[in-house]
């Protein structure tokens, strides 16, 4: 997924000299290709994220197409007000890439972990929010973000969970993508980012479940969500994000207005990580590992 990110950045940079890549001293080897191929379009702004976003706004006003890269804990969280006032308010075409979302930086602790970003970003007017699950979705999200010519937050979480798709024909912005089709639909799993893999793995163990990936959190095709909720006896929403304000809340907002359905939220509870450990260890701490989620869902479906 990271190589795909680098590839698309290089592709965009070479295609459009107005594309500028700004980083707040993050990214390391990720930008080797971009720096080699587009050396004059790369700006390391320093450890100064707030200024970085303001500068990006100024550059966008001057006709450039800034892509602002940071860790999700900083972009968008630390710079939320700059995104709101300097960029989104004026419909400026700045793409924000928030990397390492969720518990990717499991060993580094709370400062680098990010489970609030979807909730915080999706309430900002004029700002789209994308959350790809694999390299295919990432490529399409980024090129759609570029074509949109407006402000987008692109969330990148755990990047090495393998491909969800074998290939992906052009998708329309806002659409949910069916990644596992059951013959008979009883339940639907709706997942985003890293948790799409978990959703598929669990659906494989159960029966009559469709799994949907949500690369476009905002704007989302509401009628698709309504249809999915309408056709399901129950829905499980998966995200490596707080249970407040993220994809689960979004699905509940839509379904409660037109097609109420019982929903189970597989998400991060209202707590910070306690311990240090591997990514898998932290998923376990938060009850988001395969076994815990499977048990949770099994009981939920049993109680219906």
């Amino acid at each position, binding site marked *: 997924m990271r190589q795909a990110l680098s590839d698309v950045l290089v592709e965009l940079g070479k295609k459009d000299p107005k594309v500028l890549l700004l980083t707040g001293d993050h990214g390391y080897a990720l930008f080797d290709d971009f720096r080699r191929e587009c050396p004059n379009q790369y700006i390391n*702004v*320093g450890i*100064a994220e*707030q*200024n*970085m*976003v*303001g*500068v*990006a*706004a*100024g*550059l*966008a*006003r*001057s*006709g*450039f197409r800034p892509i602002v890269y940071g860790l999700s804990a900083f972009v968008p969280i630390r710079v939320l*007000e*700059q995104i709101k*006032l*300097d960029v989104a*308010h*004026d419909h400026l075409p700045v793409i924000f890439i928030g990397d390492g979302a969720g518990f990717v930086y499991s060993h580094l602790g709370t400062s680098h972990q990010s489970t609030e970003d979807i909730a915080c970003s999706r309430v900002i007017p004029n700002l789209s929010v994308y959350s790809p699950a694999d390299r295919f979705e990432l490529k399409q999200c980024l090129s759609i973000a570029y074509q949109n010519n407006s402000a987008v937050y692109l969330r990148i979480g755990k990047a090495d969970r393998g491909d969800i798709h074998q290939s992906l024909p052009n998708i329309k912005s806002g659409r949910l993508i069916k990644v596992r089709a059951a013959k008979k639909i009883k339940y639907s799993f709706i997942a985003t980012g890293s948790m799409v893999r978990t959703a598929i793995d669990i659906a494989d163990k159960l029966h009559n479940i469709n799994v949907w990936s949500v690369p476009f959190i905002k704007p989302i095709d509401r009628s698709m969500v309504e249809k999915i909720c309408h056709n399901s006896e129950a829905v499980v929403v998966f995200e490596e994000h707080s249970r407040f304000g993220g994809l689960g809340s979004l699905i509940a907002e839509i379904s409660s207005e037109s097609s109420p359905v019982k929903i189970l939220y597989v998400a991060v509870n209202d707590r910070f990580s306690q311990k240090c450990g591997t990514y898998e260890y932290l998923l376990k701490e938060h009850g988001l590992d395969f076994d815990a989620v499977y048990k949770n869902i099994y009981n939920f479906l049993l109680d219906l």
Partner: protein
Amino acid sequence: MNIKFDPKKLRKTVLDMAYAGSTVHIGCAFSIIELLSVLYKSHLRYPNNDPFNKGRDYFLLSKGHGVMAQYACMRELGWLCDDDFLNYFSNGSDLKGLSDSRIPGIEVTSGSLGHGFSVGVGLAMGAKLNKTDQDTYVLVGDGEINEGPIWEGAMFAAHHNLDNFMVIVDENGFQAMGKTQDIIGLGSIQSKFESFGFDSITVDGHDEIAINKAIEKLWNSDTKKPKALIAKTVKGKGVDFMEDDNSWHYTRLDKENYRDAIASINEGDV
């Protein structure tokens, strides 16, 4: 165009609108009147008097609290009409109490402080990359420079040799709740900016000739450094009972002190 941007007239416009809208921040507007007068009269280039012209210079009022002074200048330019002033703060009107980028002629939305500086730095860098001769001016308050992004932007501007960028600091010695020296002492603002890699001059912020000269001198400097003009100003300048009285950050005009304020400005004519 030969517009005078007469400070007395600008101040009266501010009083008229503050009275019409029963609004605050009069002192914040009065300290920057001469600075704006000089900028609009002699430095800011708007080809065809068009606030959207792609080749314009950029003026960013980062201290959005002084926006009434900018509105007054924009009226002189014909970008705002009398109704905008008579109906200030009425329901459904456009002009807000803090600067809003959706008003033609206002580049950034401010009021939350420390934003305009970085956006201006980005505009200055954009002008360099586009190889245009556009200059960027950002006016900040002295209280505003408490904000961290100002100094992030200052380092960035100096590192990238943005000699087409000028920050103007309205050093009126006050912020919302009191004197700057009692809240967060600023020391020498000029030496702060110099140490961050700026060419810097301190000037009497109400002396139009001195302001003009200082701006020209900064632009004519041989260095590749960004510029900082530190303007020593008086909050509430121009109305005797408002000068250096920070209560005019928040006080609203009533009929009596509106009349007295206009009289005070007129007396200054003598």
